[in-house]
């Protein structure tokens, strides 16, 4: 089983310069093919966990292993090599809106390219073919020459998904992917993320505010509260009491979808 461990947190802590301790002694292991949902109130450290994995934020203490490689001490070029193995999807889509959909998807290959080629946009033929395939898979191939800024929110997020999968990632990080979307786009986006990550057998970690969505998709749920892991287990095992502990409030104060589903 040890070989399957894709991602490992060992006693990771993060202290921000303003004195906020975002993570306290977090220890985690995630295997390939897992679909993990991280839930917890705002400021619990969900985004910090994700951003520590691709070194957008440096952990203050502890060790993080990606595919067995310790990444907290890496510098320069080796950081880029870690980052291209880790795809990321953002709440605000974070596309370059003045470029075409196709160009945005191809950005997923930048980590593999030389500066010279990418400055002039000389992407490899096979990369372009792969980008078109991915766009057809998520149903956006007819928009490939449109400007990314012209698309609707849900479509923008799907372009973000295609860009992340262009990287051929081992791990996919999703930072509140559906928080700015309407219910129907949310469903399409979550289905896209789930189907693609299962098909390519990659580990997926999703930050979510919607507990019912987390329960629908996730194979495993991690509850974060004040920078500490307070729940780590299956979706079925997440009880009302547990949810109350994660969110520090009574169950009646929460909008969690169909309340009947949760055990007491």
């Amino acid at each position: 089983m040890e070989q399957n461990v894709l991602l490992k947190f060992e006693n990771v802590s993060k202290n921000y310069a303003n004195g906020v301790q975002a993570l306290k002694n977090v220890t985690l292991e995630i295997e390939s093919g897992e679909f993990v949902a991280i839930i917890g109130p705002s400021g619990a450290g969900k985004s910090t966990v994700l951003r520590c994995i691709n070194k957008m934020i440096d952990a203050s203490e502890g060790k993080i292993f990606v595919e067995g490689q310790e990444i907290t001490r890496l510098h320069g070029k080796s950081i880029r090599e870690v980052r291209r193995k880790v795809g990321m999807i953002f709440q605000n889509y974070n596309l370059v809106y003045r470029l075409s959909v196709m160009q945005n998807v191809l950005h997923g290959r930048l980590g593999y390219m030389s500066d010279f080629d990418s400055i002039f946009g000389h992407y490899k033929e096979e990369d372009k073919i792969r980008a078109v395939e991915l766009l057809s898979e998520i149903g956006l191939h007819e928009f490939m020459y449109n400007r990314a800024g012209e698309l609707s929110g849900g479509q923008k997020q799907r372009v973000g998904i295609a860009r992340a999968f262009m990287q051929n990632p081992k791990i996919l990080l999703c930072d509140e992917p559906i928080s700015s979307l309407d219910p129907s786009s949310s469903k399409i986006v979550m289905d896209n993320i789930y189907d693609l990550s299962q098909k390519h057998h990659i580990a997926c970690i999703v930050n979510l505010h919607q507990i019912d969505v987390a329960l629908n998709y996730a194979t495993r749920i991690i509850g974060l509260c004040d920078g500490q892991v307070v729940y780590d287990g299956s979706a079925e095992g997440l009880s009302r009491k547990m949810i109350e502990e994660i969110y520090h409030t009574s169950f009646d104060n929460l909008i969690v979808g169909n309340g009947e589903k949760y055990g007491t």
Partner: protein
Amino acid sequence: MVHKETTDTQKKKTKRNPRGSHAYEVLLIIAAVLFILATAYTQYNPMDIILQPQNFISFITNDFFPVDFSKVFNNLDTIFMTIQMAIGAAFISAILAFITAVFGSRYTAPFQPLTKIIRGFASFLRNIPSLVWAFILFMSLGVGTGVGFVALSISTYSFLVRSFIETIDEVSTDSIEALTSCGASFWQKIFQGVIPSCIQGFLSWFLYCIEVNIRDSTIIGMVGGGGIGMVLFTYIKSFKYHSASGIILAVALMVIIVDVLTNYLRKVVETS
């Protein structure tokens, strides 16, 4: 959680309102008092120009009229020289300012300490007006169009560095974060993220700088930078007021034409 957030925002709103209205009243009173004090101290009477306009009006009617346009056509080349100085300085400064701004924005800079140094350097240059730069450079390097060009470029450069940094910070923060997470290098982020998303803003600032530079280059010309300003100053100093008034009107026309043109181009850029 939801309850908490709404009460927080309510608190902020009720706090802000009463303070704002008082601040304006106090500022108005302070400004009025300062105006009265300054007028008394300098013995300047703002009514002078209305109560005793004879000197002013006679100067305009006798010395400036009739306007002599003949000298304008003799000096068309210097008008073009002034326009060229303005556009050239804006162009060179825009290129240099872009390179500087990329290192000065905290989202793109490879070394964070550099951003503070660049911002400080640019604001130092910016706080010295272009006319002062012109005098400094004329004193050290002598007068001439080239030196005037450099003076104009310094002030344009410092202005554009600030504007470009702000454009980058504002427009491309999110997309740069995404490109970084893809493993993009510094130059990849610049060419695939910053330039495509900011080029519109950059062009708009560049055109604005041409507008400002047209006026500045006329003034810098007057103190030794050549061009139409120099010609105007020569006519004024030699009391050829009829020719000078013709030149002044020509300068106004030039500024208006350039303004209309750059405004049109900015609209084209902004709607594209």
